């Protein structure tokens, strides 16, 4: 039964203590509750249809990067988790659950690339989410990501940012910007504005300059925009990835309601992939919205619209060689690849494609909450994306010095990859470059 291939696990307080509290009875009860109440035809049909052909394997960067070790193939991960769970009708051991949790949380980015390789279109990401849901209900979750979920629950943002801290950060960015551009404002709670701009929790915490840059862009384009001062400003969602669907629903409700209160026409969100998945695909569904109740515009689409309408002028394009990472959640998740290329070509004179690209691009291995599982799993995550490093290397050989990663998670993931494989490439958000080369008002 492939036992010898199972690796020794990484120590993690969340997984270890979670496992220690389990009993076989509790496991069986919770599993059957989830299977009974929360899954149905989709799960059954996926499991019955899989012909064990292994054709999905090459779709997964974990498999490709770990010398084609079959335990990392998409169906291989399903075999080690759901198949066994269904076979044994939930009668599995605490150790089994721990291993299943490690697979589902740290060995799959839910990037859905494999769905494009399976002839039947079996959605392994969905199956891994079912495993995560079970693990969440059993309390076996990596510590770091659970901490972010706690933060969401307590503060409605991912980073334990206090309300005054949030407002202070915006004032501070506004002040900074004012030195460069007089009269630049970051309008708070402006009712009836056209756009509500929302960001992820880590932005005010670690990357406040991104808010600054976007404020300059909004200002130069003469847009009517606002940011909420109250909870709902954070569009991120780690609950979606821990399997805490109820919390995911609460978070999205807060976010959509912030927009409704401000009576805006649309929400524009920063360069983040998972947050977009949360508002456009998973969170809205949890709340019973087929499509988000407010129009959701991801940064890539937003920039595209700006350039298309000629609202931003570029006196001189960025001249360094750049390559572009396609974040799964907005490319496979929303098809924004041509829009992002349009913008890149508008602002950069030397754009080098990495291959494979667009829908077939490899994930950064940070997504799906994997990077949020923290240091214990960092090494595995970086080693498991060797193919990404090779992809970047090839682009570098063609002259790319800068990697544009229009997604926060991708940024974090690629940073580690560039560092580990000594690629010596610069990493930028799209707005970093737009800000740098655009014509700014005085």
């Amino acid at each position: 039964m492939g036992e010898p291939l199972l690796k020794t696990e990484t120590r993690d307080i969340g997984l270890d203590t979670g496992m220690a509290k389990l009993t076989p009875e509790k496991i069986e009860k919770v599993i059957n509750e989830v299977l009974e109440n929360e899954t149905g035809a989709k799960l059954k049909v996926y499991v019955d249809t899989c012909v064990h052909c292994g054709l999905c394997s090459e779709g997964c960067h974990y498999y490709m990067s770990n010398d084609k070790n079959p335990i990392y193939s998409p169906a291989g991960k399903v075999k080690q988790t759901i198949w066994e769970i269904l076979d044994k009708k939930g009668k599995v051991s605490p150790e089994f659950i721990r291993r299943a949790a490690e697979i589902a949380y740290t060995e799959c980015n839910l990037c859905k690339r494999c769905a494009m390789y399976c002839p039947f279109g079996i959605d392994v990401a969905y199956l891994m989410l079912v495993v995560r849901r079970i693990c969440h209900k059993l309390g076996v979750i990596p510590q770091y990501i659970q901490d972010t979920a706690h933060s969401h629950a307590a503060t409605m943002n991912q980073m334990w940012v206090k309300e005054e801290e949030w407002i202070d950060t915006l004032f501070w960015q506004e002040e900074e910007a004012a030195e460069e551009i007089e009269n630049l404002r970051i309008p708070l709670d402006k009712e009836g504005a056209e756009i509500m701009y929302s960001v992820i929790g880590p932005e005010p915490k670690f990357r406040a300059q991104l808010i600054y840059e976007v404020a300059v862009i909004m200002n130069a384009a003469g847009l009517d925009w606002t940011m909420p001062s109250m909870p709902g400003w954070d569009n991120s969602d780690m609950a979606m990835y821990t399997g805490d669907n109820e919390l995911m629903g609460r978070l999205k409700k807060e976010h959509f309601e912030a927009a409704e209160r401000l009576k805006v026409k649309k929400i524009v969100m920063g360069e983040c992939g998972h947050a977009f998945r949360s508002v456009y695909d998973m969170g809205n569904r949890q709340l019973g919205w087929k499509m988000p109740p407010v129009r959701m515009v991801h940064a890539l689409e937003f920039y595209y619209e700006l350039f298309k309408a000629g609202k931003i002028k570029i006196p001189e394009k960025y001249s360094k060689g750049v390559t572009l990472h396609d974040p799964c959640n907005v490319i496979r998740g929303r098809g924004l690849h041509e829009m992002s290329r349009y913008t890149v070509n508008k602002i950069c004179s030397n754009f080098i494609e990495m291959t494979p690209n667009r829908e077939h691009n490899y994930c950064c291995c940070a997504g799906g909450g994997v990077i949020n599982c923290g240091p214990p799993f960092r090494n595995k995550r970086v080693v498991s994306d060797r193919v990404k490093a090779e992809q970047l290397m090839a682009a570098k050989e063609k002259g790319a010095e800068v990697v544009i990663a229009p997604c926060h998670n991708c940024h974090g993931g690629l940073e580690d990859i560039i560092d580990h494989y000594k690629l010596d490439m610069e990493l930028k958000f799209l707005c970093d470059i737009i800000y740098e080369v655009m014509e700014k008002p005085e």
Partner: protein
Amino acid sequence: MHTLYNFVSGPLAWLAFIIFFGGSIYKIVSMMKLAKKKDTAVYEYWDGYYALRSILRWITPFATVNWRKNPVMTVVTFAFHICLVIAPIFLCAHVLLVKEAFDISWWYLPDGVTDIMALIVIFSCGYFLYRRKTKAEVKFLTSSSDYWLLLMVVAPFATGFWAYHQLFGYNLMFILHMLSGEIMLAAIPFTRLSHMLYAIFTRGYIGSEFGAVRHARDW
């Protein structure tokens, strides 16, 4: 021998067809009902145009990235599936049998062609077996049921080939041919052979999600 022959070609054949058709309808209807209850999203996001776009893509050899990445498997699996379905339906002997029993008939293929098709099925199964045994990623997924499934599929073709060529003991082979064909037919709705029934739904659904919601291609 004679009574056995009559039994296998009579009541058992009826039973096999009833189980196959009844079982298939039952499976599809019950899954649709279950989906209606538990996976409403499937209905909400189903989009005929994009479902068809995805299905057509994937039933065209070499039209997807993964088909191109695995040329041998692609050729074998397409040849296998085509022969598996076409050969039994358009085999002269089968058509004659139906004509005799129900007085309905249709066009049929020359024996030489169906003979080759049977061989293609047999050799394809050999290739699938070889793949299961040698490729680590397939081996890892393999359990004993996969071998039984393979045996179940190859048996009617191997025995049919044998009987047609009147090789040694062909009378027995003939009975085994009918029996194994009936077993396979009846097993379709209740084993992983049901991918035959479900494929359009799984492919169509992911095609709908990718096409209509995500605005992306899925091949």
